[in-house]
């Protein structure tokens, strides 16, 4: 789900034998253990790639990999991923340049890399995939080193310092099938120069300067399947018959594929988040929508939805933050046989609209009604959608109690029959202690998200009865220290978020973490600590990548489903979109946020990095005279510094 090149997925732990995994763990446990085997060069050389790669990446993950250690893997490794590590520099790449069998190299977000540093890569004649996205110091000059890698099929250059001249020079790489030029100054003439790359199947041109005049050059790419044109000035998309996925987020769209009459179109996925569509019937009314399986219209200006009648097999429909109303649901219901994902967040759809849908969308797995006006009666209709897995009812008027004929009943009882229901979001709804306690009867839930000022210890305790629970959000409540300390966590719980529970103290939070080391506890008082220790490095990296604009819109579906953090409401999607736009205009990288956060928690390391080695050695006497360093040996200090 991360952006960029689709890398062959490394073997997961489960594919390997138990003993192999045990060996891997021991080998990468500590520096001493590494020293015990690092001289066994011959063994390392004949190690198969599917063992050497996990070993290399496990070492990296445990912060044990150094540039010299890389050299040991020269003969055995075919894929290396060091993305997001600012420590990767010229020295690392000098060693990587000697990797005789390297096929794929991923260095996205390695901020230290510059033109000189990537020169050793020019020797990797067998390299097929290279990812350098967001290495801003790499410019046209550095790109020259890569032009001799004619076996390259996948190249990621988004948000690097490459200029128009460099982009045009890419035509020298004839085997490219995947090219990411997002955020680069590509204009019509450069695109014309790239026409020779007729093997391209994936082309990212988001945020480039392409205009309608240049759009005709896109026809040259006859094998193109995925095209990303978001944030560009293109308004008229010429017919591209091979295209399967088209991303036009934040564009002004006049027409798509106009004038193709009855020719077969392969387009299945269309992303139009935040776009301005002048005439929906002209832009979307033609043959292009017939085969669509996924249509994202969130935050677009569309208000007339009659074109939806033409789409039969739609599986994913995102109408969040549009002008969709109850009347539109009649159209959705008429074409809803295959619908699996439906997002109606922040629309004017109300109870009536949901009522229209029920019975027509039997395959629906995901529904979001966040920020709509629905109330407790909605459960009557949601109960009729048998395959529902995810239900987002945050920011609604749902209370959990319903008054039928003057008698109070528990409205959510209809959810009991939804045996596939796993995710339930009731944040900032009107849920109370009384109705929350009854949630414990929804035994099928694995992820529950609650946020309310009125929830207290009793409802928190009742939730320990949800035996399959993996993630629990219990934010903003009046949970007390004693409530937390007497809580019996469900056996499978991995994540507990008690953010904004203002009565909790740091001591009780730390005690809870100590008692339940398997649970990731989130609260503003302990957050930093958890970020540093419990959170593995690769997780931080993947969140970095998640923010990239291109995949941001495309992978919204996936991230909703898979992300353990739960789901963002589409309103927050829009704000983050705006943030990205702001950051882009200011010339700041879209991924800086998370990294900076990590650095701030590690101020000490940064301070030291400010000085060069010689400067630090000069500081030595003054340091040692201070009481803090008085017990530190001179030689120890020198060793410490030299290691850096």
């Amino acid at each position: 789900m991360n952006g960029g090149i689709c890398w062959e997925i490394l073997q997961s732990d489960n594919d390997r034998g138990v003993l192999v995994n045990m060996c891997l763990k021991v080998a990468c446990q500590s520096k001493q253990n590494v020293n015990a085997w690092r001289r066994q060069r011959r063994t390392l050389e004949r190690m198969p790639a599917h063992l050497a790669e996990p070993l290399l990446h496990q070492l990296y993950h445990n912060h044990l990999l150094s540039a010299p250690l890389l050299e040991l893997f020269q003969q055995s490794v075919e894929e290396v991923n060091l993305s997001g590590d600012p420590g990767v520099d010229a020295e690392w790449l000098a060693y990587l340049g000697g990797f005789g069998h390297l096929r794929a190299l991923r260095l996205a977000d390695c901020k230290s890399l510059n033109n000189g540093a990537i020169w050793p890569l020019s020797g990797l004649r067998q390299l097929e995939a290279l990812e350098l996205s967001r290495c801003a110091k790499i410019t046209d000059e550095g790109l020259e080193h890569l032009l001799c890698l004619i076996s390259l099929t996948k190249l990621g250059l988004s948000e690097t310092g490459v200029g128009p001249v460099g982009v045009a020079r890419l035509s020298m790489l004839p085997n490219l099938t995947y090219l990411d030029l997002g955020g680069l100054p590509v204009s019509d003439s450069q695109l014309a120069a790239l026409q020779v790359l007729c093997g391209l199947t994936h082309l990212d041109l988001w945020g480039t300067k392409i205009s309608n005049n240049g759009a005709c050059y896109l026809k040259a790419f006859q094998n193109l399947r995925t095209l990303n044109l978001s944030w560009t000035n293109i308004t008229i998309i010429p017919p591209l018959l091979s295209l399967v996925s088209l991303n036009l987020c934040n564009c002004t769209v006049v027409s798509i594929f106009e004038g193709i009459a009855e020719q077969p179109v392969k387009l299945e996925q269309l992303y139009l988040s935040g776009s301005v569509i002048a005439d929906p019937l002209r832009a979307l009314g033609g043959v292009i929508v017939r085969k669509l399986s996924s249509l994202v219209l969130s935050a677009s200006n569309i208000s007339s939805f009659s074109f939806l009648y033409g789409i039969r097999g739609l599986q994913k429909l995102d109408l969040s933050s549009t002008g969709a109303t109850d009347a539109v649901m009649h159209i959705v219901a008429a074409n809803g046989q295959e619908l699996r994902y439906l997002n109606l967040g922040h629309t004017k759809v109300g109870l009536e609209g949901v009522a229209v849908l029920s019975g027509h969308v039997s395959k629906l797995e995901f529904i979001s009604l966040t920020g709509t006006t629905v109330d407790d009666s909605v459960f009557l209709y949601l109960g009729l959608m048998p395959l529902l897995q995810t239900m987002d009812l945050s920011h609604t008027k749902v209370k959990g109690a319903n008054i039928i004929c003057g008698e109070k009943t528990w409205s959510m009882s209809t959810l009991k029959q939804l045996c596939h229901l796993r995710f339930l979001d009731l944040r900032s709804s009107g849920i109370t202690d009384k109705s929350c306690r009854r949630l414990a009867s929804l035994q099928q839930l694995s992820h529950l998200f609650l946020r309310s000022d009125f929830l207290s210890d009793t409802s928190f305790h009742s939730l320990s009865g949800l035996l399959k629970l993996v993630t629990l959000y219990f934010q903003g409540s009046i949970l007390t220290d004693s409530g937390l300390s007497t809580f019996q966590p469900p056996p499978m719980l991995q994540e507990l978020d008690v953010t904004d529970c203002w009565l909790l103290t740091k001591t009780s939070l730390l005690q809870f973490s100590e008692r339940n080391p398997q649970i990731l506890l989130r609260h503003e008082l302990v957050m930093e600590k958890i970020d540093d220790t419990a959170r593995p490095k690769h997780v931080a990296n993947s969140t970095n990548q998640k923010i990239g604009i291109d995949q941001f819109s495309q992978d919204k579906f996936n991230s909703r489903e898979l992300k353990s953090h739960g789901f963002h409401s589409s309103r927050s999607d829009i704000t983050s979109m705006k943030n990205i736009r702001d950051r882009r205009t200011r010339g700041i990288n879209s991924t800086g946020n998370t990294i900076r956060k990590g650095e701030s928690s590690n101020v000490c390391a940064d301070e030291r990095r400010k000085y060069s080695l010689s400067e630090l050695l000069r500081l030595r006497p003054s340091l040692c005279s201070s009481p803090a360093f008085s017990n530190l040996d001179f030689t120890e200090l020198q060793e410490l510094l030299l290691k850096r």
Partner: protein
Amino acid sequence: MRKEDTVKLISAEGFEFIIDRKAALVSNTLKNMLTSSGSFTETELGEVRFPEISTPILEKVCQYFYWSLQFASGKETEFHIEPEITLELMMAANYLHT
């Protein structure tokens, strides 16, 4: 103990390890070798040669087989691996699919 219930594993240096058949079956590779219907010499003699695996590694592998059986029956002890042999053992384990 009957001969059919045991398996002989021979290391690169020619050392022979005679272990219980059910212990050997922990390894998927050995399982396939020993239970295949074709008339392999391994199946008939209950004897497998490992020209690539040295004696100390094969010994450790045999220890693992028994540990694995114990672990499966509920005796949760730790299996200690010396860091010096991790690479060799990993490759042997990979070959034996265990």
